[in-house]
């Protein structure tokens, strides 16, 4: 356990060293936040209460999206590139003989990264957004706690998806296609494009059932107080369910891949 905490801490530090890059990222998130905020204002002034949000809630959704974009690695750029590279070069064989759990090792590192991105790239855009626009910030501290839980679960789901993508490199010479599909899925179905409750009919239902909604839609609904009581537990169960299912799939795939590496001798 202490080992994984150390791995997480080093994941945190690794991203914390790039201060200029962090500041530049915050700047970009803020610019996009402003642009999107005005488009949402235009949309909600035509259709107040669209998707069950009022304008302040819709604007809150915009800024939450910018705050969680890096945290949930919605644009990629986390550990997966490195893992794919290790699989390609065969260095993965060394990792497999280490007395640590490969999946937990990478998960710990990614949690460290996510924590840094949440603090370093999430808070400032959120504060600027709340100063520039009227946002619907929760008054109840318990809602904030529930939100943090939902974000943490979202990060785990995000990790599990990217872990599966990375493992595909064992079979596919060029993993770009799989990574691309996962990335497009994340862009479209997380809520980054538009809140999923604005998606029409069956598309909306599908979007809300897919794992990607754990990245932004679910945490945002928890933050906005749309999921409370039993429904809140349902939201957590949804995220945890996807997390367990995808992590489990990752373990199965990893076991198959390991057998393959051992049989082939690396």
């Amino acid at each position, binding site marked *: 356990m202490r080992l994984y905490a150390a791995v997480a801490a080093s994941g945190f530090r690794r991203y914390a060293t790039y201060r200029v890059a962090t500041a530049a990222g915050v700047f970009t998130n803020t610019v996009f936040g402003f642009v999107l905020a005005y488009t949402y204002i235009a949309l909600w002034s035509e259709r107040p209460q669209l998707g069950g949000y009022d304008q302040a809630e819709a604007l809150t959704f915009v800024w939450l999206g910018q705050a969680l974009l890096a945290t949930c690695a919605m644009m990629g750029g986390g550990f997966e590139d490195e893992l794919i590279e290790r699989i390609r070069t065969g260095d993965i064989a060394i990792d497999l003989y280490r007395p640590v759990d490969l999946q937990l090792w990478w998960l710990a590192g990614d949690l460290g990264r996510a924590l840094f991105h949440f603090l370093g790239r999430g808070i400032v855009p959120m504060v600027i957004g709340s100063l520039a626009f009227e946002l619907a910030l929760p008054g109840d501290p318990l809602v904030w706690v529930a939100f943090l839980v939902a974000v943490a679960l979202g990060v785990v789901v995000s990790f599990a998806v990217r872990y599966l993508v990375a493992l595909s490199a064992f079979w596919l010479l060029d993993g770009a296609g799989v990574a691309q599909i996962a990335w497009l899925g994340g862009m*479209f179905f997380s809520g980054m494009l538009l809140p999923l409750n604005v998606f029409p009919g069956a598309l909306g239902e599908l979007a809300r059932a897919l794992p990607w909604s754990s990245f932004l839609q679910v945490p945002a609904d928890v933050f906005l107080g749309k999921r409370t009581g039993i429904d809140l537990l349902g939201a957590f169960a949804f995220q945890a369910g996807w997390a367990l299912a995808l992590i489990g799939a990752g373990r199965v795939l990893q076991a198959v891949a390991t057998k393959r590496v051992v049989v082939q001798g690396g």
Partner: protein
Amino acid sequence: MVDGIRAYRMIAAMWIRSTMTYRASFAMTLFGNFAATAFDFVAILLMFSHVDALGGFTLGEIAFLYGATGIAFGIADLVMGSMDRLGRRVRDGTLDTLLVRPAPVLVQVAADRFALRRLGRITQGVLVFGYALTVVDIDWTPARALLVPVMLLSGAAIFSAVFTAGAAFQFLAQDSAEVQNAFTYGGNTLLQYPPSIFARELVRGVTFVLPLAFVNWLPALYVLGREAPAGLPSWLAFLPPVVAVVCCALASLAWRAGLRSYRSTGS
């Protein structure tokens, strides 16, 4: 200039051939580029499943704005998009290898990793623009017809200047590639929507400070037969070529200053 274009062509051709050694991967990334950039328009379509107009503009009119910036930005992204890697080249020292070759450094940096997959962005811009031209009832005059290609080319030049200026800034702050993204990708997103939905100061800011409004807003609103935004005079619609030339001149000065600073500090 001719030498620069010749060098660009040669280097770009090398990268195209490199890409073609992984054909399947190229096909997928081309599709991915197309799909990812088209998502922006999908978002607009989803909005219009709930409303008939946004900021007083119809779907067709917004498609006109969207397509115009999509094409202009797509061209700039194709030609100059690799310039955001400059900071990385400074950090790992590979910029030096370009300085001992008989071709302009700017050209070599711009042509570096030339990526045909970026045609995906241009393609979706062309499709949306074509759609707009079929559904919007434009009162065509010679001036309007001429302004369309002028707008697209000037827009590409303005965005190219932004890419170049952003790269020049990376000589000072090597990890600042994302700042450039705010103005390029962020600017493109801004211009996809009508100026009427944004705050008046913001519209004036992107007219007089960072003149992105000349990419499409000012000329496109004229073509669409609408009044210029934020109380601006309508003759500004004809200024994009002038603005483009000024932007490119300033960007090239910034680039020279950046390169000079690199050559005197080595970082």
